[in-house]
């Protein structure tokens, strides 16, 4: 019963979030496709003129990194203040609170999935078959699932904490901004001077983005590091879930 309500509510709120965004737009759901298209055009034209980093097809490199990054940053940024905004839902009944941040993550994941699908079509049209091998697709899928897990785990922690300390929202925004430049998204890992590279090893996103960019740039990370990153990501979700469950009963007292 409880389990059912959790899933049903999660999906209903996710759907609500997706629908609400385009509700009064004349073009309606077309925006789901137009948005990422414009994004990619801007990335492709503007960024490619400024940076190159000696990568052939640099615009493709950008798409591969920026689309998932946009999902990751938007999901966490939007999920963090959400419980405070949705206080009227929380006052209504004793439903599982985790559906609030998780539905935000899922709705952004939906938009990301659409844009990723469009990117795949684009790659087919361009004849970029190296992205569409079984191995490349497998790495993409793995990276995307881990990214979803990571965003969910972090959102559970930040959204719960933000109920008690509203500063968290601002801290998250700042951290996300720094994190963007600290992750090889618009530049390849090889652009980092080798004596600094170890510091970048602390970032679990390094593994995920190098999995995504593999067909274009080869990053040779030690296998043990990759495993540690995956472990950190999985632990974030588990600990985030436990932490959220512990804090959730006290939300109403602070809203």
């Amino acid at each position, binding site marked *: 019963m409880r389990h059912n309500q959790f899933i*049903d509510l999660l999906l209903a709120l996710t759907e609500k979030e997706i*629908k609400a965004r385009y*509700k009064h737009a004349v073009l309606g759901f077309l925006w789901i496709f137009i948005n990422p298209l414009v994004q990619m055009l801007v990335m492709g034209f503007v960024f490619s003129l400024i940076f190159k980093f000696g990568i052939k097809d640099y615009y493709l490199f950008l798409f591969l990194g920026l689309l998932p990054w946009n999902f990751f940053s938007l999901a966490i940024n939007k999920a963090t203040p959400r419980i405070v905004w949705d206080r009227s839902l929380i006052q*209504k009944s004793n439903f599982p609170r985790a559906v609030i941040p998780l539905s935000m993550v899922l709705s952004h994941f939906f938009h990301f999935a659409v844009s990723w699908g469009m990117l795949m079509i684009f790659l087919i049209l361009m004849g970029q078959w190296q992205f569409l091998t079984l191995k490349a697709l497998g790495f993409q899928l793995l990276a995307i699932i881990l990214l979803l897990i990571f965003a969910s785990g972090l959102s559970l922690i930040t959204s719960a904490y933000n109920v008690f300390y*509203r500063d968290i929202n601002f801290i998250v925004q700042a951290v996300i901004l720094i994190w963007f430049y600290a992750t090889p998204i618009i530049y390849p890992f090889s652009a980092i001077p080798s004596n600094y590279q170890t510091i970048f090893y602390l970032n679990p996103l390094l593994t995920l983005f190098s999995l995504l960019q593999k067909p274009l740039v080869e990053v040779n990370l030690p296998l043990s590091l990759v495993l540690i990153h995956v472990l950190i990501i999985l632990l974030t979700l588990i600990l985030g879930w436990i932490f959220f469950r512990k804090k959730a009963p*006290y939300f109403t007292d602070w809203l």
Partner: protein
Amino acid sequence: MKNNIVISLKSVSKKYILHHEKPTLVESLFKTKEEFWALKNINLEIKKGQKLGIIGPNGAGKSTLLKIITGITVPTSGSVKAKGRIASLIDLEAGFEPELTGEENIYINGLLLGMAKKEIKNNFNRIVKFAEIKKFIDSPLHTYSSGMKLRLGFSLAAFSNPDILIIDEVITAGDESFQRKSYEKIQEFCHQEKTIIFVSHILDILKKLCPQTLWLDRGKIKEFGLSKKVVNKYLHFN
């Protein structure tokens, strides 16, 4: 918990920390906290099918008690047990999303109240009919009048098939004909095996609906017993 007892509170106390403004990280580290006990050592058992009235002046802890029973908040100390689905008619508009249509709101709020998808589907027409919003079901909720929203909120809670129903002053919601309708609905619940907690300042209705009444005062139970007696004492006390 004995079989026929659906709500049981054992030495429940609730402390609130007063926030005069939104807490910030720096403030919470340096400022001393102001505490306030909304409930102190409440013991209460409610049987299945019992109709209990709750009275008390503003600030007596009535809302806090209801929030604890519904599980919206947790007690600082003591234990709470509640069996079955609880619907509260307290904040009828809570949970409504202004951008979404009436239909979408029914769906989401039904889930919030613990209804299954299928249950919502099966009851959809009845909810809409009772709320008298059939014509506007596809319009976004921000176009609804406050009366329409209240009717929808009441209708949803009423058709969520609760085991325990918590009622505030809702009988005064809406126009006269809807007041009559909602009162009839509540009476219908009273005849069924539903457990009802009724919080009201309208003592006549309270006496009519609930054989027993609990009088809360400054977070403590002042009196508990037959409604007639408790209400009389309450009236003389004020």
